[in-house]
């Protein structure tokens, strides 16, 4: 498996204006991710996990330093270029699901493919497949308001994975799933990771996720305090 770099983060600082001053959410982050990684970012609430994923997803820009994603420097992207990067290469699973409320499950999952202008036949097949991965075939016509939290989360996962992106950024993807569903979805992700060499980066607290991760990065107060490769750890112990 090739180990070319997909993400480079150099001296990244993110500050938010708060009151009169600033709050430093990410403090001098230096990280590198290779293609095909299955990595978790863990850490207490407020440690900066979502902030980091947002920057990697080109939804936000660094205050200082640089993040390079798929050879694109995030801080230099125009809005249009950022949209193209997200649309073409990145699947985003939001902590808050962010399903489109007026669309059915099917239409929510279909949406990224419409943006990609995928032909109807191919699109339908991909949508059906993605909905099968998350086990929601019987809810295809439901609207988000009719779904449970876990079901909504699974729709969000299907929507992020339907276009088989090179990079999936998943913010607490299993927070509302029971153990059976969590394992099922993680195995599906693992399969995509193996078959298509898709890179997964999770922000998570979930112990169930940990056991699948190949690398765990620990954030505290916006700083990387630990960066462990599981294989190495197992080998060491």
């Amino acid at each position, binding site marked *: 498996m090739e180990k070319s770099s997909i993400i480079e983060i150099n001296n990244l600082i993110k500050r938010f204006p708060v009151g009169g001053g600033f709050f430093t959410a990410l403090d001098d982050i230096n990280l590198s991710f290779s293609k095909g990684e299955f990595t978790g970012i863990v850490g207490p609430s407020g440690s900066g996990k979502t902030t980091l994923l947002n920057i990697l997803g080109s*939804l936000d820009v660094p205050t200082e330093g640089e993040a390079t994603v798929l050879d694109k420097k995030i801080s230099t992207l125009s809005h249009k270029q950022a949209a193209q990067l997200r649309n073409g290469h990145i699947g985003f699973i939001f902590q808050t699901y*962010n399903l489109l409320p007026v669309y059915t499950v099917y239409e929510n999952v279909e949406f990224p493919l419409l943006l990609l202008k995928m032909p109807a036949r191919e699109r339908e097949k991909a949508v059906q497949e993605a909905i099968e991965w998350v086990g929601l075939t019987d809810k295809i016509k439901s609207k988000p308001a009719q779904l449970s939290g876990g079901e909504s989360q699974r729709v969000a996962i299907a929507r992020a994975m339907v276009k088989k992106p090179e990079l999936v950024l998943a913010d607490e993807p299993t927070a509302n799933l029971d153990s059976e569903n969590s394992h099922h979805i993680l195995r599906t992700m693992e399969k995509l990771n193996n078959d298509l060499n898709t890179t997964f980066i999770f922000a998570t607290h979930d112990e169930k996720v940990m056991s699948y991760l190949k690398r765990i990065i620990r954030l505290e107060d916006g700083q990387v305090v630990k960066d462990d490769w599981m294989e190495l750890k197992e080998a060491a112990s």
Partner: protein
Amino acid sequence: MSIKLALRNLLGAGLRTWLNVIVLSFSYVIIIWYQGLIDGWNVQARRDMIAWEIAQGQYWHEAYDSYDPFTLEDSHGSIPDNLAGGNVAPILITQGTIYPEGRIQGVILKGIAKDQQVLRLPTDRLIKENGEIPVLVGKRMATNNKLKEGDYLTLRWRDSNGTFDATEVRIAGIFSTDVPSVDQGNVWLTLEDLQQMTQSEGEATLIVSGSESLNNMNISGWDFKSMDFLLADLDQIIKQKSVGGSIMYILLLLLAMLAIFDTQILSIFRRQKEIGTFIALGMTRKQVVKLFTIEGGMNSVLAALVGAVYGVPLLIMQYKVGYAMPYEPDDFGIAISEVIYPSYSLGLILGTIIIVMLTATIVSYIPARKIAKMNPTDAIKGKIQ
């Protein structure tokens, strides 16, 4: 793609969309209804004035000044030979005074041939019974002076020598018209009676033409006044009124815009999470603006369809039944009937539809542009800025 998504957004939103659409459809129907009434009113005012007063045009005695009643004494002359006997109605005009219930009331006396066919005035009711002079008055004149059919009235006037004279006249008929200038302050007699009373046999002040072939002749001592000239005052009033009408039109349009603007502004806040998601999933700002603008435009297309469903039968019914004026027609200086029949022109209908659609689209574009400028990370959380 935008059209497909816009339609999906609209239909997906269900009840919300239909509420917007119904509100917007009111704007179409109300604007067309209101403007149709104004137009119908104008058409009617012209038609009535032509029927009751103007006909095909008028020859005026060269000294006649319709704005100055004090010149009436000297502004009449012999009816020209080339008009006499034709399809015309000569009218002799002079000043007079009546004494209804002891009050003094100045009036304009108008003599017109009993058998004229040119104007709608019911002159055939000017029948002499016991030798006394029969007169006709309009309904408003009758109401204002408490006159009834069969009443006797003292009438005073000056003959051509300037001598005052008086006689009893009988009200032979009361007619109902929408044209105030033949009603208010007017007392109609037969031409013969008035000519005798004023010792001006064979004379008239003006001659109403009943056929176009008699128009525009060069007759010395008489000036031809065309229909357009005689309608100029009315046109002036209509113009002023239609300025008022356009203000109303603009107001209604503003209201419609407000309704759309309001729902679209509300959309920013209610839908910002949705919009943030659109952007996070890879839509460009331009695509989002386009989507929302098309949504707004589509709203107005749906509204036109919905408006047509109930508006067409409603407007047709109004057209057939007419609209009863809620105020006294006397308050206006121009002809207003008690019932107005609206007139809907193709221009009015198409114009309204195009204008409402354009405004709906423009008004959707403005907030859409603002929405798309939001920071996507804030928008995703649904934070209100």
